[in-house]
């Protein structure tokens, strides 16, 4: 008769501790996970030969329509992002549209305060420190080897600190009160626990400021010089939020603090504009760097059993980076979790619950694209309901119907990949219903693997 083991399960607790250590050092153990899970994909990969031949490509008309939408999105992004700030910047400055690779570092109001761009410091040599978007001041471009970018090299993605970063300079700004008078003040980054990303520090007329009752005043920069850099006037910083005591029957309203909230959502940022003086001649560099390389590798996507939950097996001939976008005929299928042995696991957009940076292209010729930060709440087949954050209610009462594209979700998941048709929910402003076209069965696709400059 076999005896039962009475040993205390030290090994089990050690495995749980190992899992915690794994989560705190993900890059160290990433090869182990790729190897283990890649090995487990061996069985479904062998079985995939019974799944049938991959479907043929979409018809030319559908492909042309998707390309047309992509071009329209890019045109409207450039038109919208380049507009506005040209009034404040020198006329001969060159405008460079940069994609955002990542946002990080908690700043004022707990919001992200740092961006990484898809251009390197070398490619942005000679650019002004100011970074704008439409008529908004977004932040400041850093220099490699200086301050917060002390450890950065010239080939690294350029780092931008937003105005709510603790190292961002104080700014001179003004707002127009309801009676038409101008209130001038100094604005600085707020603390992470404050209710707004920027905080007003000093007023030129604190007594009048204490009588501000209504929020939503637009705050613009006033001309300011710090060091060798100048901040021009007329750039929009955001709108005010008031913190204080409301008016009562016995007492007047008392404003204690005024905060400024930018008009953009940092986590939704897909593109920003960097300015280079027309007189500066940059050194010759490759026209396209590996940071913006959209090199694609061909692959085949198979449905895994239970594919209604949005998991697919990817078989490619080269290594698949983590988070790489999988595209079929211009349609965004999902992101891949790269594994060993030429395999990968793809989670479709509707099944993924991670936060996304998205671009929404409203119907109509002159509507500007809207940058959103969204999460899929639930899905039913090919239809997903997204909870989004983006422009405030004052800026945009309600999203119209339109097309949804990816925003910048990392180096290997660039913006502009078409997801599907989007419509606003009837009774909730921040809910979006997205229909993603898909078809079952194996299909040929492409994975964005980046790599050397084209």
């Amino acid at each position, binding site marked *: 008769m076999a005896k039962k083991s009475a040993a205390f399960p030290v090994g089990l607790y050690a495995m*749980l501790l*190992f899992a915690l250590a*794994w989560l705190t050092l993900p890059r160290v153990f990433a090869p182990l996970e790729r190897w283990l*899970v890649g090995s487990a994909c061996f069985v479904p990969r062998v079985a995939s030969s019974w799944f049938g031949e991959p479907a043929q490509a979409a018809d030319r008309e559908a492909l042309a329509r998707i390309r047309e939408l992509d071009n329209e999105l890019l045109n409207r992004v450039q038109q919208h992002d380049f507009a506005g700030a040209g009034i404040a910047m020198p006329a001969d400055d060159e405008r460079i549209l940069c994609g955002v690779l990542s946002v990080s570092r908690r700043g004022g109001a707990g919001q992200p305060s740092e961006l990484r761009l898809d251009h390197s410091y070398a490619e942005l040599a000679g650019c002004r420190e100011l970074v704008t978007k439409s008529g908004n001041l977004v932040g400041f471009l850093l220099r490699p080897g200086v301050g917060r970018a002390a450890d950065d090299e010239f080939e690294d993605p350029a780092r931008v600190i937003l105005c709510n970063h603790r190292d961002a300079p104080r700014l001179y700004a003004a707002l127009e009160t309801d009676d038409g008078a101008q209130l001038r003040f100094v604005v600085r980054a707020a603390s992470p626990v404050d209710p707004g990303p920027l905080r007003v520090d000093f007023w030129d007329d604190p007594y009048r400021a204490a009588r501000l009752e209504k929020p939503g005043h637009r705050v613009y920069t006033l001309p300011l010089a710090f060091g060798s850099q100048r901040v021009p006037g007329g750039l929009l910083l955001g709108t005010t939020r008031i913190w204080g005591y409301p008016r009562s029957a016995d007492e007047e309203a008392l404003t204690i603090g005024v905060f400024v909230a930018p008009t953009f959502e940092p986590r939704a940022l897909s593109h920003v504009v960097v300015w280079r003086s027309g007189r500066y001649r940059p050194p010759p560099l490759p026209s396209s760097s590996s940071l913006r390389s959209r090199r694609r590798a061909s692959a085949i996507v198979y449905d895994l059993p239970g594919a209604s*939950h949005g998991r697919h097996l990817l078989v490619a001939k080269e290594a698949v980076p983590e988070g790489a976008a999988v595209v079929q005929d211009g349609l965004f299928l999902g992101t891949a979790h790269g594994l060993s042995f030429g395999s990968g*696991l793809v989670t479709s957009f509707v099944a993924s*619950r991670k936060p996304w940076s998205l671009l929404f292209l409203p119907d109509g010729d002159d509507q500007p694209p809207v940058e959103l930060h969204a999460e899929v709440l639930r899905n039913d087949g090919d239809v997903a309901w997204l909870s989004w954050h983006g422009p405030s209610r004052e800026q945009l009462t309600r999203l119209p119907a339109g097309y949804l594209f990816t925003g910048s979700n990392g180096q290997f998941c660039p913006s502009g990949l078409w997801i599907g048709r989007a419509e606003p929910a009837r009774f909730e402003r921040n809910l979006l219903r997205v229909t993603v076209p898909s078809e079952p069965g194996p299909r040929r696709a492409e994975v964005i693997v980046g790599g050397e400059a084209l």
Partner: protein
Amino acid sequence: MRWLLWFLLAPQVFLLAGFVQDLGLPALDMAVLAALYLAWFAERSALPFLLLGVAIGRSLVDEASLPVHLLVIGIPVALLLPLRSLFVAHRWLWQALAAALLAIAVPKLAGLCGRVFDQPSASAALQGWQVVWSALLVPPLLSFLRFLPPFAGFSEPDGPRPMAVMADRAS
């Protein structure tokens, strides 16, 4: 040999559950079945790597990373393990109760780990019907699977063991 069978077949159980669901049969979270098997029937000394095999299987069907699945399945196993010696775990009533609790706890734990480690996944959504089906189906499935490979190679007996398994152990 039993370890080879475990790492070859145990992860595929999650895909098999998806296949069964595609056929229209009730949805069952295999993490519940696996956690109950590991907690009440599997060899204690083999638990760490049995858990690893199950977590690999769950990572095939869920977008969170492998260590998250180790925690989501391993923590309930660690909590249920001491109960093995307290009462008769082989009674279906206790198994049904534990399965129902696990069907609630596993998604909640997945949601917690998703928030803490920034790895959300669709399996964090609690579905009421899955709790019911877990309570109804897990006990008979466990009674059946415990004597099938690869589970049979690691099941702790509550009586005389099948001769084939003992011979394999001796070799």
